[in-house]
Structures are given as structure tokens and as C-alpha cells.
């Protein structure tokens, strides 16, 4: 169902999709047929060199929970204008059920020179009345001047600052875009959810909460040579929360080395004059973390999250995320100071 030549017509793609549903319906066994599900349009912008199979597997994994019309745009660094498209379906049969559930997928190949043409192609392909999320997998694409027109279609643009060469610069670029009104998400922030939730849970206990205004020092250890965006985000989020209880601690970043670079290995909140930290979370082996607070030690699992797990979380928040926006502003300030 590919479109020939260097241009594509959205009407033709929509027609191809209608045909696809008819043929899927005919293939369906008996009266059960197929069930079409859609809760959003998910546009994926990726380099042509990006692992197509991995993207496909991630989308397939996301579909049961976030059934979407997926539009995957693969970019070629080429000056000649050129676009091509094909449509197909992702189907799955829930265990023990008779009916297949299917989502549609459109794959578009575009040269860099065609980026200005994309808005007119993608806009008619989005599903009416449902949110549009743009997942930009390449920093290069985000920085293409014409990319902002494509991004304007989306309610939210998901990036990964860990893919940028310079984390501090990435935070600056993203903060500028956010300040200009763009709704963004950063998978580096998403990676912190479990860390943040553990910290929040520690201070649900009133005995621990009473210590919070005493925090005078925050230590965040990481594995990268340069401080990663995750560390800046966590520091900014902690500072924001602590300011609300009247604490204004000093932040120390420490590199412990290791892989992956963005991964944190320790966060510790301490108070002047106290030998023991008020609270600490330290990665031990593998995905395990040791949580210490108030003399109690507990274990938690902090698995490294893959693209599927990160996107699964982000897609469940189609609107703005005020906590992230505050953390981004704070992180950019810390990184660029």
C-alpha cells in the first residue's frame, strides 16, 4: 500500500486504511471480527537510521494500553524533497478472547527537505477529537527550524534529553520551548518517577516529615562524567519542594562513574550537625535500591525503564504536567548557572 513517487496524498492513505479495515474484518473468524480501538494519534519522528524494529516493537507493546493511530515518520538527511507512505495494522488477540483488537499504523518516509510539507500531510491523518502526541526520538530533528510546525499539531511533544550530547544545553533548549508555550515531556524526567515516588513516600510518615525543614544538604550521585539531566531535574524538584517548607539546602552533584550515564546511584538529604542522613536512597545491585529513613531500612525495586515503560507513562498524561514544567525551569537554571 505504498504511495509511489515523491509525494503522498492523505486522502489516498485514508482510503488505504479504510480498505485495510475491510480486509481485516473479512479475515476475522466467524462473527467475532476485529475490534478497532483508538484513544489518540501518536506521531513518532525518528531518523532513518533509528532501529525500525525496536520502534515497531515499542509501538506494538504500547497499543494494548494506549490504542492509537500511529504515524511513524522516518527522516532522511537529504536535500531533495521526497515523501513516501504505507499503511498497516497492529493486531493482537487478548488471551482467552475470540476477538482481535487492531490499531492502524502509517509509516511515512521523508527527507529533511520535506519537513515543511509534513504538517499538511500529517494534520489530515490525525484522528479527530482525540489528542495528538509527538514523540521525537532525535535531537537533530527537534532542532530543525521547520520541525516546530509539525510539533504545533501535537498537544504534547515527548523528547529525551539523555539523547542530547550536552545535557545542560538540552535543558536550555527545552526550557526555551516550554517558556514559549510548547507542552513538552522529557523521558529523563519520566525516569525519575520511581525515585521521586520513593522520596515522597518517605515523607508521608509524619515523623520523617517533621525533619524536612532541617535539610541543609542534598547529595545526588550519578554515573556520567558530566552531570546528567536526571540529576538536575531531581535537584530542582527537591529544591522546589523543600522551599515550600522553608528549607534552602546546598546541592552537591557527584560522579561515581558507570553505565548507563543518565542513571542516578544515590540521593541523600542531610541536616547540619546530624551524623546520619535524614533520608537516603542508594542503588545496590541490579534494580534494587536501599531506602533509609528514621533508622528503618527497606528495599525497593528501581528497574531501568525501557522506551515502552517510559512512553507508557507519558501517554497516560496527554495534557500539561505542572510539576515537570517547574522542574524543567529549575533544572535549566541549575545547569546553566
Amino acid at each position, binding site marked *: 500500500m505504498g504511495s509511489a513517487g515523491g509525494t503522498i496524498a492523505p486522502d489516498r492513505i485514508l482510503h488505504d486504511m479504510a480498505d485495510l479495515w475491510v480486509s481485516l474484518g473479512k479475515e476475522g473468524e466467524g462473527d467475532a471480527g476485529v*475490534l478497532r*480501538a483508538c484513544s489518540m494519534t501518536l506521531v513518532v519522528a525518528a531518523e532513518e537510521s533509528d532501529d525500525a524494529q525496536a520502534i515497531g516493537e515499542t509501538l506494538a507493546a504500547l497499543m*494494548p*494500553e494506549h*490504542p492509537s493511530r500511529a504515524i511513524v515518520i522516518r527522516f532522511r538527511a537529504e536535500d531533495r524533497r521526497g515523501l513516501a507512505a504505507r499503511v498497516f495494522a497492529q493486531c*493482537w488477540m*487478548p488471551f*482467552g*478472547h475470540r*476477538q482481535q*483488537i487492531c490499531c492502524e499504523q502509517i509509516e511515512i518516509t521523508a527527507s529533511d527537505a520535506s519537513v515543511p510539507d509534513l504538517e499538511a500531510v500529517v494534520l489530515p491523518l490525525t484522528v479527530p477529537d482525540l489528542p495528538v502526541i509527538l514523540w521525537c526520538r532525535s535531537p537533530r530533528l527537534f532542532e530543525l527550524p521547520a520541525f516546530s510546525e509539525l510539533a504545533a499539531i501535537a498537544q504534547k511533544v515527548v523528547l529525551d534529553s539523555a539523547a542530547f550530547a550536552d545535557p545542560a544545553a538540552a535543558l536550555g533548549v527545552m526550557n526555551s520551548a516550554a517558556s514559549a508555550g510548547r507542552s513538552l515531556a522529557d523521558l529523563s524526567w519520566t525516569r525519575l*518517577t*520511581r525515585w*521521586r*515516588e*520513593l*522520596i*515522597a*513516600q*518517605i*515523607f*508521608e*510518615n*509524619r*515523623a*520523617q*516529615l*517533621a525533619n*524536612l*525543614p532541617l535539610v541543609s544538604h542534598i547529595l545526588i550521585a550519578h554515573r556520567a562524567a558530566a552531570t546528567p539531566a536526571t540529576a538536575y531535574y531531581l535537584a530542582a*524538584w*527537591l529544591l*522546589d*519542594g*523543600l522551599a*515550600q*517548607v522553608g528549607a534552602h539546602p546546598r546541592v552537591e552533584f557527584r560522579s561515581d562513574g558507570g553505565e548507563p550515564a543518565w542513571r542516578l546511584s544515590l540521593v541523600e538529604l542531610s541536616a547540619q550537625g546530624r551524623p546520619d542522613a535524614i533520608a537516603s536512597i542508594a542503588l545496590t545491585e541490579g534494580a*534494587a535500591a536501599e*531506602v533509609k*529513613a*528514621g533508622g*528503618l*531500612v*527497606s*528495599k*525497593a*525495586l528501581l528497574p531501568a525503564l525501557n522506551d515502552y515503560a517510559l512512553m507508557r*507513562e507519558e501517554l497516560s*498524561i496527554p495534557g500539561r*504536567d*505542572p*510539576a515537570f514544567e517547574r522542574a524543567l525551569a529549575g533544572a535549566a537554571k541549575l545547569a546553566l548557572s
Partner: protein
Amino acid sequence: MSLENPFQDPLRFERRVPECAMVIFGANGDLTKRKLLPALYRLAYERRLDAGFAVLGISRTPMSDDEFREKMLASVKEFLEDSPFDTDVWAAFAQGIFYMAGNFDDGALFPALDARLKEINAARHTGGNVLFYLSAQPSQYIPIAQGIAAANVGKAESGWRRIVIEKPFGHDLASARTLSNELHSAFQESEVYRIDHYLGKETVQNILALRFGNGIFEPLWNRRYVNHVQITAAESIGVEGRGAYYQEAGALRDMIQNHLSQVLATIAMEPSATFRPDSVRDERSKLLRSIRVMKPDEVLRNTVSGQYGPAHIGGEDVPGFRQEQGVKPEAQTDTYAAVTFLVDNWRWAGVPFYLRSGKRLPKRVTEIAIQFNAAPLAIFNGDETTTAPNLLILRIQPEEGISLKFLSKRPGAGMKLRPVSMDFNYGSSFGERSPSAYETLLLDAIIGDATLYTRQDMVEASWAVVDAIQHVWDETKFDFPNYGAGTWGPKASDDMLARRGHVWRQP
């Protein structure tokens, strides 16, 4: 001014869970092993519990803390469903598990319990918060409540105290009131959490989302458009060794008085002004009080009592109820109950609500079927399928989901209609593991959210309705058995619906 945790992020984090200790009376029993500990471990695995969360188990059997931990470890490994086991998480969670042996009739147990709770509070910073859980035999509820009251363990110097009790909440209206009075000697009604695990099921909660989160259903949700409602809770198994208990209870008391009445209340209640626990429970309670209490001469026309007989199913002989272990050969117990309830309010006047529950029915299924009135005029020629009524099916188990059946034109020439189904499947649409009912309800009790728990006035309202039926049944000699195992119940049940021109839907 008290400090607020500044790190909460409701958009991404699960609900906030305060520190607390949980005391389980009947810690060596089946419910603790099969449901409570696996649910608590799962909550710990999901990082939903405070790091200092503690469990203090109490039962008669002498055991050390370590022996109890070993026992609970074995139970968690055996009964943990749909979830991985992690040794490190268990090791940290198990540090907070304690045990004390004692007889619930022994007054000395409760001061000792108080002392133990103080130790645990000091060691694990539980903030003086205690959740008592009665997982013991119902006959022991009152001695436990009296012991707690006498030792004043139900009153907190700091923090809160709550008590969760399992059904049955009495065996009739009078005994339910006695139980409540005893509980109230140690706890305020707002501190009593009567658990009905049906209300913890995702789909039952989803009824509220469907009704009050959408605008399109509310205008249809009344006597003008709804023809009747069928609520079915069928089990394919028999009494499975619980014959002695079950012959004193029966399907009417065991299912309809509590689970199905609560489901009915959720389906039929008026919209709540807010989603605060008492606001929702007020509406449920009002609905239960609106169910018409049958007069004795109405009972036999509007109810059906049944008991299964022996049968041969799938190449296997299955015993009748009277042949089950521990059951008297002349038992008059209802293993099947069907009732027609009428709700006397403006919304539902004249709409029958048919409830049925039984054992040894053809399959295990719980669902609610809302049948809408047929189109007022049949303009399409054809067979009866062209006038099939619209049905909204809410499936509670085993495949949680919602289906809407409506008519559609058959492709091709001519105007032939056929019914089609629009399905929403809870599991496959969200893909996430649904928490078990016990995970949901335990967390609610720790958080202090009683929305899904039953209040005393609701218990009394449903007993008032059921007592009126039970009194007539107790005085009637039924010709049991009256349905074969593996069938959909007695013929009288079909007749009951037929009198109003309805038929049971086959789930």
C-alpha cells in the same frame, strides 16, 4: 500549622498512604493466608505502603514472630496471583511482621496487645495509627469488640484507629444491630469498615465511572427507558467443603443480602453530589432503603428458592447439595436464590430488578444486564431479531468489561437488521494488571476512604428487605432438590420473569 508533604505528585504517583500498623485477628486462618498477606505483600512490592508498615497477627496457635513470618512467606508464594515474588522486597516487608498468640475471649489479651502496639509504634514509627482486621470466625466478632473496648485499645492517644470486618454482618436484622452496638462500644461508626469485596472489584467501581463520568447514559437511566435489570452471580462450583457453614447461610443471606444488594445500589443510586465517601454512601443507603419490603403474600410470587441435586457433568458424577459433606440429608438451604425487587422512587418506579445467585450453575459469571425498552414502532419487516431490545451488559467477572448490544443493518440489498455488540474489555483496553479487590480495599481502609465500604444503615436496609423473604422461606417446606447441577436453576425462576413478560438472559 501542620506540615504538608511537598513532594506529592498526584498526576504520576499513586495515592498517599499514611504510616500504620495492622492487627489481624485470625492470623492463622484461610483468609489471611489466601487474600490478606498476598495483597499486603503486593502493595509493598508496588511501594504503596510506608516503610515502617507493620502487621501484627493474632490467633490461638503459639508461634514466634519468625515462625509466623515463615508461614506467611509460604502463603504469599502460594497464593500470590499474577505477580512476581522478590526476595529483597519480602525481606524488608517481613521485618514489619509480628505475631502474638492469644484467645479472643481472654481479657488479658487486649492489654498485652496494647503494650505490643506501643513497642511496634516506637520501633517502626507507625504514628499511633492502627487498623484492626477481623479475619476470625463471625462468632468471635463480639468478644473481640468487647475486649478492644474494655482495654480501650480502640481509642488512640495519637493517630487513628479503624476496624475492618468481614461479612456476615449478622444473620438477620436483629443480630446485625447487636453486632453494630458492640462495635460501637469501641469505635465510632466512621471508624468501622465493613468489607464487601465485590465493591472493590474494578468493574463495580467502573459502574460509577460509566454512570457519572459520562453524560450520555444519565438521561436513559430511569423508568422511561429501562425496561428491567438483571443481576446474575453464578458459580459453577458447589459448596466445596463449606457445607456445614453454607447450610446455615444460603444464597439469599450469603450473596443477595450483601454483594448483590450493593451492586444493585451502585447501579440504581442517584448521582452523588461529590465523590466523598459519605456522599456516595448516603446515595447507596437511600437506594437500599427504597427497595420495597415484600409482604408475606408477595414473597412466593417474587422470589424463588432452589437447591441443586446430583448430576453427571462432563463425564463426572457431582453430588447434590444434600450429599455434600457436613450437610443434613433433609437440609432446606437455598443454594439458589432469585428475587424480584422493586425500587420505590421516582426514577425506578415499576422497573423490576431481578437478582439471582446460585451454586452449581453452568458457569462462573457475574454480570449486570440493563435491558432498554424496544423501539416504540417496528418499521422494519423481519423476524424477532429486528426488534431485539438494546442491552447494556456490565461484566464483573470473569472478563471484566462493558458491552452494548444494538441493531445494525445487515450488509447487502434489503433492510435486514441484526444485533451487534460493541465491546469494551477492561483488561485488553488498559493492559494493566488490575489490583485485586483486597489490595484496593485494604489501601482504602489505611487511607481512610470508606467509599467502597458498607455502612450500618446500608446493612440494616438490606437486612430489612431480606429478612421479609427469609421469614417466609423459613416457614415454607420446599420440594428440594429442584434444579440439577449444571443448569441455570429451577424452572420457577423462569416463571417468575415470565409473569412480567421477561426472560433470563443467558450469560
